[in-house]
């Protein structure tokens, strides 16, 4: 029997083999494989995010425009709801029974032990009505949250709105840090300055047990952070001017942009038709948004940034400045008002210099100015000559910030269009077009498209005699200044002297005898306005009226561009509207004899639209 004793080693070996197997396996899952640690944190750690206080928005004069007010969500923890008296509950909340049932069902589906919102966006009076009775309904509680509220009924297009993040946003890398249900700026300045307004979220790490019930702070709150309020925005918008501009644009379609030429700050920004910014906040916001979206007047369309119009005669100024800088014309150059080249606006004196040409907005004159700039005999082939000439001309024109985004602090901006030789090559064929094809550009018609903002910026550039700051709404973020890109001066490549040669012409447009912009004259209050009227040919209906100006001519403080859709000749509607705004901004009030214009200014609603 003694030889059986050797078998104890076999038993020992079996024991040891299992122990070694376990040791190796444990070493693998405990030391080598990190995935279990992550899984453990996923199990027990719950991030509780504290929403920061969103930055406020002030106007130029420090008046508060957008602020935060508490709204209340009625939360429910399904597990704690005991014997719900549905009839009384519905009566208390003034909600239909089905809605409460649906809400409870959704809450149960989400979690039986975690709170989910049953009714959102209750205002303080609504809360007061139910709060005392809520004690009879275990499982229901109130959660306060901050929402936007507005001290102004204006500039909805610039301000934009704040809403809950959508699933489409969540997928973008830019919004990777946002969580479902969080609020953020969806459009306008709220969106553009989201990082500044947002502030920093506070994060608390809570440990939860297997049923999701909180079990205290993780490591005594070592990793918790407090939320930091967002920075306030100080807008350059003058609320009074803005309100006045919106009042004047009421019932019209179009845009108004007013800039401070010395800084590029936007003083007024109107997209008509307008709506109250509060429309897109609070209870029932979704329905109201859909109403705006389906409105045939397209109130959500941000016209100063997104509507590109052929600028009409106002563009003649750019055309002239480019030609002067190229040296192909001088201020004393005269061209015949030759109606065979292009129809002129009206019969007028011989445009023997640029001043007279601008004052009368002479189409054949500027036709010939641009022809001189484009056809310079660079090539024996007249097609190639036009091609090369247009290319160079376009590059100079684009220096004015045309045909590309200016870079305003709103994201919806369109580039507009300064057509390139390639554009015509594609449309008409290579060497199948010449100056006769593109001449409309010289008078701001045809394929050219610029936005209201770009037009205002042209005025600011002329006012400054050759430079501009990128137009912007926000002149101060928190305690600091604007974003760095708004403190860079852009020059347009035209010598100041050439501006001095056209500005008197612009003044005589307004103040001269027989000038097309006579309705904008403010000489009676001692303000000299330099401007240019324009009438935009509209193939779809009545022409659009434009007027662009700056004032005072000798020390410009405001540059303005007004587009009124389907309002016909610029001199009769856009020019007086501009005058009112300039007067309002520079003097603070309107001369009594001009007040009657306020109610009289033509717009499509009264005069034109009905015909179609």
């Amino acid at each position, binding site marked *: *029997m003694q030889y*059986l*004793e050797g*078998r*104890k080693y*076999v*038993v*020992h070996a*079996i*024991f*040891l083999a*299992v*122990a070694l*197997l*376990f*040791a190796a*396996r*444990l*070493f693998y*899952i*405990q*030391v080598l*494989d990190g*995935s*279990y*640690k992550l*899984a*453990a*944190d996923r*199990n*027990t750690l719950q991030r509780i995010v504290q929403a920061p206080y969103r930055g406020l928005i002030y106007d130029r004069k420090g008046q508060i425009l957008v602020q935060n007010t508490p709204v209340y969500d009625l939360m429910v923890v399904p597990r704690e709801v005991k014997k719900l008296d549905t009839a009384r509950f519905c009566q208390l909340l003034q909600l239909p029974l089905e809605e409460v049932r649906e809400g409870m069902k959704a809450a149960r589906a989400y979690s039986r032990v975690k709170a989910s919102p049953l009714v959102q966006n209750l205002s303080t009076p609504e809360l007061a009505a139910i709060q005392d009775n809520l004690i009879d309904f275990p499982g229901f509680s109130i959660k306060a949250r901050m929402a936007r509220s507005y001290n102004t009924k204006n500039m909805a297009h610039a301000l934009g709105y704040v809403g809950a993040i959508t699933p489409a946003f969540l997928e973008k890398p830019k919004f990777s840090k946002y969580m479902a249900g969080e609020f953020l700026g969806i459009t306008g300045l709220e969106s553009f300055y989201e990082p500044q307004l947002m502030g920093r979220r506070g994060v608390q790490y809570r*440990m*939860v*047990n*297997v*049923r999701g019930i909180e*079990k*205290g702070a993780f490591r005594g709150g070592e990793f918790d952070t407090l939320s930091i309020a967002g920075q306030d925005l100080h807008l350059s918008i003058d609320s009074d001017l803005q309100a006045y501009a919106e009042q004047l644009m009421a019932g019209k379609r179009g845009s108004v942009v007013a800039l401070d030429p010395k800084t590029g700050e936007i003083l007024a920004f109107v997209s008509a038709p307008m709506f109250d910014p509060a429309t897109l906040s609070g209870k029932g916001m979704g329905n109201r948004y859909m109403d705006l979206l389906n409105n045939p007047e397209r109130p959500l369309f941000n016209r100063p940034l997104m509507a590109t119009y052929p600028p009409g005669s106002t563009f003649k100024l750019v055309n002239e400045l480019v030609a002067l800088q190229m040296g192909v014309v001088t201020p004393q150059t005269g061209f015949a008002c030759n109606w065979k080249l292009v129809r002129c606006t009206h019969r007028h004196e011989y445009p023997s210099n640029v001043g007279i040409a601008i004052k009368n907005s002479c189409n054949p004159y500027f036709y010939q100015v641009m022809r001189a700039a484009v056809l310079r005999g660079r090539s024996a082939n007249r097609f190639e000559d036009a091609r090369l000439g247009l290319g160079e001309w376009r590059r100079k024109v684009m220096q004015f910030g045309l045909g590309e985004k200016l870079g305003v602090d709103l994201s919806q901006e369109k580039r507009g269009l300064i057509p390139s030789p390639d554009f015509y090559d594609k449309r008409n064929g290579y060497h199948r077009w010449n100056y006769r094809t593109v001449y409309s550009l010289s008078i701001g018609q045809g394929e050219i498209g610029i936005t209201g903002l770009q037009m205002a910026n042209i005025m600011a550039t002329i006012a400054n005699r050759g430079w501009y700051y990128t137009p912007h709404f926000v002149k101060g973020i928190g305690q600091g200044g604007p974003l760095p890109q708004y403190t860079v001066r852009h020059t347009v490549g035209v010598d100041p002297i050439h501006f001095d040669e056209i500005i008197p012409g612009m003044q005589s447009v307004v103040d001269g005898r027989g000038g097309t912009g006579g309705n904008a004259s403010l000489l009676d209050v001692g303000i000299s306005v330099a401007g240019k009227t324009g009438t935009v040919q509209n193939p779809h209906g009545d022409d659009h009226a434009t007027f662009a100006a700056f004032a005072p001519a000798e020390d410009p403080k405001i540059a303005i561009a007004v587009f009124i859709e389907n309002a016909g000749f610029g001199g009769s509607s856009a020019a007086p509207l501009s005058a009112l705004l300039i007067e309002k901004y520079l003097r603070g009030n309107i001369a009594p004899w001009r007040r009657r214009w306020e109610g009289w200014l033509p717009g499509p609603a009264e005069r034109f639209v009905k015909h179609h």
Partner: protein
Amino acid sequence: MPTSPARYSRSIDWITVLIYLLMVGVGWLSVYAASYSPDAPENPFSHLSFQELMAFNWFKQILWIGTAVVLIVVLLVIDYKAYDTFAFVLYGAMILLLIVTPFIARPIAGSRSWLELGPVRLQPAEFAKFITALAVSRYMAGINLRQQNFRDQLVLAGLTLLPPLLIIAANETGQALVFGAFLLAYFREGMSPLILLILAAAGVVLILSLLVPKLWLVGAFTVLLGLVFAFNTRIFRHHLVLALSVWAVVVGMVFGVDFFFNNVLQAHQRKRIEVLINPSADPLGVGWNVTQSKIAIGSGGFAGKGFLQGTQTKFDFVPEQSTDFIFCTVGEEWGWVGTMVVIILFMVLLGRILYVAERQKSVFGRTYGYCVASIIFFHFCVNIGMTIGLAPVVGIPLPFFSYGGSSLWSFTTLLFILLAIDAYRKQDLERY
């Protein structure tokens, strides 16, 4: 023949006692950590009444340990010959108890295997282990396994198989599997190693047939067998029939697995094996236990999260965390270092038991020693194996660590009967 207490105490194997105390101590700390709740008062004894304290597993475990110490004293005082003499009587009584248990027990967690005596719940199946061990050792002392006496072997098989069959009838399959461990003891006493080999081979074939496509498995085995015989034509001639029958049995097993799996195993047992192969098969059911258990142990890292710092166990992610899944608490709070300490403690204990068994002069003592080691080893294998995903989820406790009076008392009894027998070993010599 009475001995002086001093002499008697010198003959006790204190090393085993020391390891036992260490394990029970570490086990209690783990039970405390597993049932610790961060909401509990700082010093429970000054705040809570006895009744309230009884709600805590760690407090009850103190009572179980205290009673286990009393039990140890009783076991060591009883004349060792009583275990020898009354082995069969105890066995008979136990069989009767196992038979009546399902009829008088209230169902708890799907099985009628717990007897309630006032506040104490006992599981007869726990005690069946050491009583069966005593009985087979007693029987073994009278026969010679090597002599191939078929009647003796049959009786031995009957003694070993009767308790597990009754336990299976009470729906406690896990406890029944433990009796398989006796094969190791029988092996030491002369059972043919072929039986172990065949069982091991059958196990390998079963596992492979769950993991590998069946036709591949049969093909590979056929080729292997073919190669063995192709290179050894002499064996080929002599053992052709044997080879063919082995081939037939293996092929039969491979294809029989499905039948066994679907018709013999119960649904929950099938799930547990499926989960072993693919833990994500049933993530919220049986898979939950395995996944959460692995997460708890795996998140412990090298040195662990520290005593009472285990988040997975503290916040109830691990089910049965103070009983069957107590190893998770060790793994999470003490890391790889802690799990190694536990494994080493078990290895030292098992080694010491084998050493003690080998120094017995009687077949009874030695067989019993091997039975003790085998039973503890089986629990060690299956319990730790299941917590780290190497064995199916079988509800058996980790000896000396898991919370529970029944299990602690039964393992204590199992171990200390051996120490009692060992302590009288020298007197045995003196007597003859």
